[in-house]
Structure formats: structure tokens, C-alpha cells
């Protein structure tokens, strides 16, 4: 049995805005095993990126972790002071590949300079040693080592994304969070980056949380999939089960909304209405106003995640 590298329990992260408290991450629990990719999907505003940043111990202000626990390799990180998080956790234990590689690199420094910074700061390496290591990581992601001397504007979007991936891996973290790592890229480059991540997963045994709104991309890489809706995980399990036997009506609808490349679809399904306001989420099941099967109990009581099969949980009163 593979070891659990990340354990999240009842995590709550709320944004305290002037208009009210936005419950962006509300009672989220899951585990990530070593060498596993967990895909996290949902519509915009469902809290998937907020969850990613929360796991890094850096919820975007005015967000605050209100409760729950996040254990990385057994160590609790909720409640750790900022300097400890920075020195011991972030980038060392858990790192992040950001959305939009274009903006993740500083245009006035060379690639090498940006890559060796964490090595010098965290590992106390000499510059030469660090540069050497940066070059090895660039090779690992399929780039020429000389890129350390180049500036971001000299690279294409795909190359920049590879640099960002190499930087996230350079301290050998236990967990990597990839937040929409391919959204701004063209189809071919996107496929190349997905291939690279598959290769790294295999060679380095990466444990990763892959966040995206695109269920097609998610299927290409995830061992397990979690579907988020309005700040909660509403279905989680083995990816085969999620894609072929989706249990929650929301997951079913989402999958039916994807146009297929090699199949004729007469009519695409869509979900009427829009995701709820998280300041005042609907009572009971948060999906009930948009759910075609909503019953009395759905309006009144909130369903818990329950096991419906081995490694397949869903939160719905119909089950």
C-alpha cells in the first residue's frame, strides 16, 4: 500500500469580504497517496483554485483558513507561523505550478537566476552547484540546459511552462499542485506538456493534484478524480469509475456536456442556471436548485459523502 503524502480533513477556507463571508472551501476532505495524480475539477468559482492555494498555506487575502487540517507527509501545516511555512514547507514539501506560465516568470531575470533562488535560499547551495542542478532539471523537462542564460521573453509559451514545471520540482517536494497548467496553451503544446507530466509522474513518482475545469484533460492524467461544486467535493473516486459510472447528477451532466471528437452527439446536455452565490449558499444540497432530480430532502438536508463502491464516494440523497 502506497504511503499517504497528503491528508486533508474538514478543511474550511472562507473569504471575509465586505459583502459577507464567502465559503469558498467548505469541509473538504481527501487523501493523496504517493505517486498518485488526483484530478480536481469543477466550474469556475467552485473553489478548486482556492483549495490549491490553501494547501500551499497561502490562501489569497481576504481568505483565511477557518478550520480543518492539512497534513503533508504526516506534518500538520494549518496554524504554522508564516516564517516556518516559508522556510520549511512551501516549495520544499509542497509546490505549485501556476496557471499562465507567461506571468509566473520575472521578465528582468534570467531563467537560471530564478531557478537557483530556492536552491540557494533553502539548501544553502553555492551558485555553481545550484546552476548545475537547474540545468539538470531543465534537461529533465525536455529543454536545453543553456536556457539558464536566457530571459523569459526569448522562450515560447510551451518552453516557459516547462521552466515553471522544472522550478516547481527542483526542491523535490512531496506534493505538487498544478493549477490549470495548460489552459493558455495551444492544443499541440498542451498535449506535449501533458506528456511531460506523465513522464515525470512515472520517472520521479510524483504525487500531484491537477486542477482544471477541463474533464478531457483531466482524464489524460488522473488516477483519481474529485469533482467540486460550490466549495465542496461532491464526488471522488477512481477515475475509471468517475468517467464511466458517475454517480452524482452534477458529474453526469458535466460529462454529458463535453462534445466528443469521434462520436456523433445529437444534443449536448447542459446544466440550467448558474453556480450559487457562496455568501448565501442554497439550503440542503447545494446543487438542488439546478438538479433535475431534486426532492424534498435535498432542499432541507445536506448530503454527506458516502461510499457507493470501492474507492468511489458521492454526496447525493439519491444514492
Amino acid at each position: 500500500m502506497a504511503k499517504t503524502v497528503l491528508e486533508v480533513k474538514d478543511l474550511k477556507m472562507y473569504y471575509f469580504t465586505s459583502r459577507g463571508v464567502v465559503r469558498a472551501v467548505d469541509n473538504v476532505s481527501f487523501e493523496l497517496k504517493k505517486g498518485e495524480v488526483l484530478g480536481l475539477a469543477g466550474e469556475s468559482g467552485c473553489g478548486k483554485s482556492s483549495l490549491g492555494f490553501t494547501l500551499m498555506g497561502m490562501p489569497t487575502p481576504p481568505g483565511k483558513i477557518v478550520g480543518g487540517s492539512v497534513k503533508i507527509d504526516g506534518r500538520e501545516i494549518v496554524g504554522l507561523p508564516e516564517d516556518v511555512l516559508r522556510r520549511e514547507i512551501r516549495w520544499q514539501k509542497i509546490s505549485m505550478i501556476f496557471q499562465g506560465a507567461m506571468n509566473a516568470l520575472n521578465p528582468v531575470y534570467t531563467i537560471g537566476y530564478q531557478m537557483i533562488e530556492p536552491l540557494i535560499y533553502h539548501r544553502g547551495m553555492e551558485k555553481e552547484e545550484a546552476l548545475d542542478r537547474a540545468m539538470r532539471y531543465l534537461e529533465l523537462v525536455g529543454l536545453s540546459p543553456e536556457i539558464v542564460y536566457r530571459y523569459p521573453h526569448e522562450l515560447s509559451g510551451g518552453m516557459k511552462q516547462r521552466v515553471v514545471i522544472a522550478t516547481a520540482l527542483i526542491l523535490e517536494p512531496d506534493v505538487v499542485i498544478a493549477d490549470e497548467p495548460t489552459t493558455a496553451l495551444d492544443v499541440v503544446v498542451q498535449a506535449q506538456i501533458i506528456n511531460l507530466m506523465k513522464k515525470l509522474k512515472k520517472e520521479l513518482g510524483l504525487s500531484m493534484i491537477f486542477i482544471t475545469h477541463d474533464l478531457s484533460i483531466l482524464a489524460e492524467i488522473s488516477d483519481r478524480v474529485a469533482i467540486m461544486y460550490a466549495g465542496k467535493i461532491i464526488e471522488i473516486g477512481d477515475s475509471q469509475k468517475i468517467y464511466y459510472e458517475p454517480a452524482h447528477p452534477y458529474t453526469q451532466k458535466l460529462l454529458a456536456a463535453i462534445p466528443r471528437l469521434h462520436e456523433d452527439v445529437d444534443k449536448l446536455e447542459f446544466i440550467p442556471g448558474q453556480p450559487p452565490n457562496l455568501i448565501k449558499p442554497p439550503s440542503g444540497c447545494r446543487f438542488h436548485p439546478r438538479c433535475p432530480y431534486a426532492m424534498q430532502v435535498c432542499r432541507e438536508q445536506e448530503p454527506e459523502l458516502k461510499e457507493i463502491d470501492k474507492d468511489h464516494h458521492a454526496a447525493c440523497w439519491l444514492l
Partner: protein
Amino acid sequence: MTKPILKVENLKKYFPVKRGLLGALRGEPPKFVRAVDGVSFEVYKQEVFALVGESGCGKTTTGKLVMKLLEPTDGRIYLEGKDVTDLKTQEEIKAYRRKVQMIFQDPFSSMNPRFRIYDVLEEPLLIHGIGETRAEREELIYKALEMVKIVPPEDYVGRHPHMLSGGQRQRVAIARALILNPTFIVADEPVSMLDVSIRAEILELMKELKEKMGVTYLYITHDLSTARYFADWIAVMYLGRIVEMGPARVVIDNPIHPYTRALLAAVPEPIPERRNIIKELPIKGEVPSAINIPPGCRFHPRCIYMERGLCDVKHPQLVEYEHNHWVECWLAGKI
């Protein structure tokens, strides 16, 4: 044979690139970005013609040329048999825009935030002098909103764009294009900024309008899956040229051009069994700049089948490989 609604012939658009002072002093020849470099196609009534390609392939520029937002460097555009390439007077352009309308990618920035939905939809009517009285215009506006299922329209006309969701906003954008009852709509990535569930809703709506109202679309997209679902015809563009064109299903199920094949191979599909397999991508390198277009076939530096002495020397032409299926490749049928 019916006549095409829109016909584009050998359309070209070159954008000049600024030379530096030094370059000008040295007398270097001016350089051009050949964004669209000889594109021809026809669109028939009540059909959807998709232009598909990666960023920088010239698909949006082609759309803007058709919309007459840009002047072509060369080539001709015909609408319903009439040459519309050199519309000069304001009246001529106005009359053209009444027939050809556009839906933009970003519903968040394509509407004036200070307008109410009513104003957004009334503006085209006022510009084109449709509807004598306020009551007449109001009726047209309500009808357009009902058509795109913004119901009841009374609830929405007084709102500002920020008070609507992305999907609703895109539907208002469609209503704005439809209110003039155009013959032709250019839709530039109309769903790429929307969530999956809403994307399906907008595509369904556009499809329904095509069937009910006989709208003809030029659908510009990077997404082959939605093109297959929505379009009747697909033209794949690469570096300013159409490299393959045909009925949507034929192009996707039986692609001939190596670039089309690579694009199709790259499309992610919701099939989890493939998660541990590294995908074969039959393509090398990256898209070259449209300033320095490679000689010969412009795809040859990236092509895995490239034949030296042929592909890197002579430029292939778009030829009819089989009935209605056009390919621009020397090796069509041999690979």
C-alpha cells in the same frame, strides 16, 4: 447547385513590421507578417463553416477581413454574389454590416458596462434606423431576447452587463447580432471563455438558431471537438493558409494532411484508460514566426514525413483529394 452566401478568393493580409532606424538606413527591405496568405473558401446558406487552427494561424484575421474590420492586401470577398471587397462609402459599409454580424470571444468586454441590456440591443437598431418608434424597437428587443432564451425579457432589459452571468451575457451578444436579422454571422471563439456546462448551452442555442432562422455562420475556433459538433465544414489553417478543408466528419475521421493529424492526436479526450500512455504526437518543433515563413510547404520543418527536395522546395497547392475534400500536401494519399 445553390450559390454560396459568402465566397472568399485568394484572400491575403500582410501586416508591415516596423524596421528599426538602423534597418531603414541600411536599406533593408520592409518585412511583413503574412497573417493570411491566399485563403479561398465558400460558405453556403444555413451551414456552419469552421476555421480551425492554433493561435497565430490567421483564423481571426480572416474573420476580421470578412467582417470588413480590416482591408485585405489582396484577394476578393463576395457576399451573395456581389463583390464587397472595396466598399468605400459609409453607406455601403453600413449596408454590409447589416447583413454580416459578429459574435466576439469575450462577453465580458464586448459590451459597454454603462449600457443597460436595453441600450446594448437598441444601439444597432438606432444606427441602422430600424423601428420608427420606441415601442416598435422595444418589441424587436424583447423578441430578440426571447429568441436567445433570456426570459422574461422585462426582467433583464434594465440590467447592466455585470449583473448577468457569462452565459447570459454571451446570449445577449448573440441577440445583439441577430436583432438586425443578418444573413451571415462571424462567431470568433464564442464559447472558449465559458464553462463546459454553459458552453454546451450556447452551442445548442446557436445550432437551434441556425435551424430555425436559417442563420449561416463562420465559426472560428481552436477546438476541434466543438467544431465537429457544431460545424458542417471544417477548414484547418496553418500559418495563414488552409491546409485541409472538407465536411466536418470527413476531416476529423479521415484526416489527410499531417498537420491535421497532429492536431487531432493532440486533442484530449475523456477516456481515463489512456492516462498512463504517453501520446504519440506526429509533429516536431514549434510554429515558426509568420514573418519568416519557411520555403516550400510551410509545414515541412515540423512534418515527420517531409521529403527532401520536394516539400522543402516547392509550395504545394490546395487540391481536391477526393470529392469535396481538399488538401494542400505533396504527399496526400501516400502517407
